[in-house]
C-alpha cells in the first residue's frame, strides 16, 4: 500500500518542522516540504501528493495562488488542501474556502486540531 504523502508549504523552516513532528505522531504518513509556492509547484508533478497543507503569506507565489492552481489543474484538482494561516478574519477564511480549500486552520492552533483535520483525509 502506498504511503499517504502530505506536502507542507510554508516559508518558515521552524513552522515546517513543527508541522512534520506533529504529523509524525500519526505514524503511517510521509511528508515532503516546500519553502515557497515555487517549490510546491515543482513538487506536485514529482511526488504523489495526497494532501497539501499550505501557508498563505509567502513571497512570489502565495498560498491562495497555489490553491487556485491546484483546483484548476485536472491532474491535482481532487487533492485536498488545508490552508494554515495567521490570517484569521472571516473575509480571509471565506476567500480560502471559496477558492476550494477543504479546511482553513488559523495559527496558532493546538496540535490536536491539526491531527483531527488531517485524519479526515487519510
Amino acid at each position, binding site marked *: 500500500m502506498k504511503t499517504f504523502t502530505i506536502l507542507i508549504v510554508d*516559508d*518558515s*523552516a*521552524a*513552522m515546517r*518542522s*513543527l508541522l512534520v*513532528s506533529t504529523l509524525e505522531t500519526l505514524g503511517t504518513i510521509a511528508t515532503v516540504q516546500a519553502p515557497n*509556492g*515555487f517549490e510546491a*509547484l*515543482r513538487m506536485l*508533478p514529482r511526488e504523489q501528493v495526497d494532501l497539501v497543507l499550505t*501557508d*498563505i*503569506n*509567502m*513571497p*512570489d*507565489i*502565495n498560498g*491562495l*495562488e*497555489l*490553491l*487556485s*492552481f491546484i483546483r*484548476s*489543474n*485536472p*491532474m491535482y484538482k481532487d487533492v485536498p488542501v488545508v490552508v494554515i*494561516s*495567521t490570517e484569521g478574519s472571516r*473575509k*480571509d477564511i471565506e*476567500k480560502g474556502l*471559496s*477558492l476550494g480549500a477543504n479546511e482553513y486552520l488559523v*495559527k*496558532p*492552533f*493546538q*496540535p490536536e486540531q491539526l491531527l483531527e483535520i488531517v485524519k479526515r483525509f487519510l
Partner: protein
Amino acid sequence: MSSSSPPSSDAARDFLAEAEEIVEELGTQLADLADMAEKGAWEPDLLNAIFRGAHSLKGLAGMFGFGMIAETAHHAENLLDWLRMGKISLTPAVLELLFSSATLLTTLLRACVDGTLDQHQAAASAHASAIAACLNPVEPVSAPPLLEQLGLSDSLMGALTEYEEHRLKENCSKGRHIYVVHASFELTTFDQGLAELTDILKGCGEVISTLPSVGERIETHIDFDLLVGTDRNEQELSALLKHLDVSILLAGAAKGDTKAAALSDRADFQPVAVTASTPETADAPVALSASELPSASPEEAFSAKSMSRTVRVDIGKLDELMNIVGELVLAHSSISSIANRMRTEGFSRMAIDLGKAAKGLERRLTDLQKGVMDIRMIPVGQLYEKMSRIVRKISREQGKKIELKLYGAETELDKLIVEDIADPLMHIIRNAIDHGIESPERRMASGKDERGTVRLSSFQKGNHVVIEVEDDGAGIDLEKVKQKALSKGLVQDINGMSDREALDLIFMPGFSTADTITDISGRGVGMDVVRNNIAAVSGMVDIETRLGQGSRFTIILPITLAIIKALIIFCAGRTYAIPITSVVESLILEPADIKTVEGKEVINLREQTLPLLRLERLFRVERVGINPGEQYVVVVGSAEKRLGIVVDDLLGQQDIVIKPLGPAFRALRGISGAADLGDQRTILVLDAGGIIAETMRGSGA
C-alpha cells in the same frame, strides 16, 4: 492570544534561530526603507517584505507559545499593514516606531534565551499603545478605482489577497497600464524562466500577482499569469519581453480623470496583439453620458486614444516587407541600367523619359525603404536595461562594486540586430566584470576608487552604429595571454608577437584567460563565439587594452541588416560584395610598392604597414580569365587591425539584401552570406572581420 502547549527544546531552538534571522533581516530592510523614504519614494515590494517578516514572526511565535513576542510582532505587523495598504503614511514618527519594534523584538528574543521574558511586559505594553495611537487612518484622497472595469478574469481576481488588490488599485490610481502577462514554461525549468520574466517586469514596474495556471500542455508545462502595473505602453513592454515566449494582455490603462472613460473603452479586455487593420478608436462606446465624461482637454483625449494607436506586428511581416522593398530596389537598378544603355545606344527621347521615370521611382523607393526601416528601428536602450540587471546580479554575486554608466540609449538599431547582439554584449560585459574589474580591496590597493566603472555607450557613426564597453579594471595582461595560448597549443611561437596579434589570440576558439573557471564567464562560450555572433550580423569587434587601466571593446554594427550598402568588387573572375561598414578606403595598387615581410605581402600606407590579402589564395580558387592590368586595394577593418584586400576591379556601391547561406556553409570563414545583384546574379558577401581574423592567424595570405 492563546498559546499552544510548551514546545520541546529542539523546537524552541528552531524557533529562536529562525526568529533571530527574521528580526535581523527586519533591521536591514527597515534601514533600506528609511533610505528610500528619505529620497521620497519607497518600493512597495520592500514594505511588503518587511510586513511578511513581522507576519511570519507573529505566526511562529504564536505556534511555539511565545505569546509576548507574538503580541509585539502582531502590533508591528498591524502598523506595517496599515502602511502597505496606504491607510497611514510613512512619517519619521512611524519609521521610528518600526525601528523600535525591531529593537524590542530583539530584546524579547534574547530574553527568551535567558528566561527573563516576564521582565519586559511593561515595555511591550507601552510599545503596543504607542502603535495603537498611531493608527489613525488618513482620509482617502479620491474614490478608489473600480477594479471591475479592468475586466480581469474571476480566477485572477479571486486569488488576489487584500494587499494585492490594494496594489492593483494603487497602480490604477497612478495611471499605470495594467497588463496580464501570460507565459508558459517547461515544468522542469519554469523557475528560471519565471525568475527572468519577473526580473524584467520588476525592472519596469510592479508585479502585483503571479498566478500559476493550467495551459494546454498540462503534462509538461506550467503556465503563469502575471498581473503587472507599469508606465510602459504595450509596444515597449512587448519589446522588453520579445525574447520570451509570452503574450501580453492590456487590462486597462487609466490616466487621471479619464480613467472611467478609458476603462470602459477597454472593458471587454482585448488582447493587445492587434494585427495591422482597422483602428479601434472609431467604435468608442456611447453609453457614457456627457456629465460623466471629464472635460475633455486635448491632452486627456489623447491619453485615452493613444492606447489603440500602437500596433504590434510580427517581425516576420516586416522582414517580408523589407524583402519586397529590397527586391524593388534591385528591380529599380535594372530599369536604370536599361535606361542608361538605351541612352548610349541612341534611343534618346525614350531613354531620357525612362531615365526620368526611374529617378522618380528611386525617390519614392528611398522614402519607402526609409519608412519600412524606421518601423524596425528600436532604441539600444532596451538592451541597456537587460545589461544593467546583469551587472547588478554579477556584482552582487562577486562582491565587486560596480557602477554602470550608460550613454546613447536613444541610438536606434534594427530590432533583429538588437536581438542578436544581446548575447555577445552580455558576454563582453560579464568578462569585463569577471576578468576586468578587480575586487574592491585590490582596487584600493592600486589607488583606484573601490567602485569599478563599466561604461556602455552607443552612437551612430556614418552608416553604422558603434557600441562600446569600457571598463576601468585591470586590463588584459598580454604576456599572460601569450603564455596561455602557447600552453594550449593555439600558437607555436610567441617571439616577436605584436600586442595586436596577442590581443587577437583571445578570439581564438578554445581560449580562456580565467585561471579558474568561474560561474560567470566560464559558461563554455568563448570570445570566438562572441566574434562569430557579431559577424553574423555583419558586425566587427575590436579590443583596446591598457594594463592596469582597463579595456575597451568596440562593436561596429550596420544600422540594419535588411538592406546594407556594399562595395561590389571583382577578383579572380568572381564578383563579391563587401559591406561598406567594414571598408575604410580603397586605392590603386602599385605593384612596385609591394614588399614582402616573412613571406607575406605588405604595402606601406601612410607610414603604416598594411598586410595584403589575395582572395583567390584565401578561398583557394583558381584564377579565371586573364590576369588583370591595374589592381586595387580595398582597406577593411578598424583601428590598427587593418587589411588590404587585393581586387581586380571596383564595380561601385550598391544596396544589397544579405541572405544567409544554408547550414552546410555555416562553418565557412570569411563569408557572411549571399546577395542578389538584381541582374540574375548571386554573389557572395565577404565577412571582413572573419577574414582579418583568419589572416592574423596566419592561415590566410
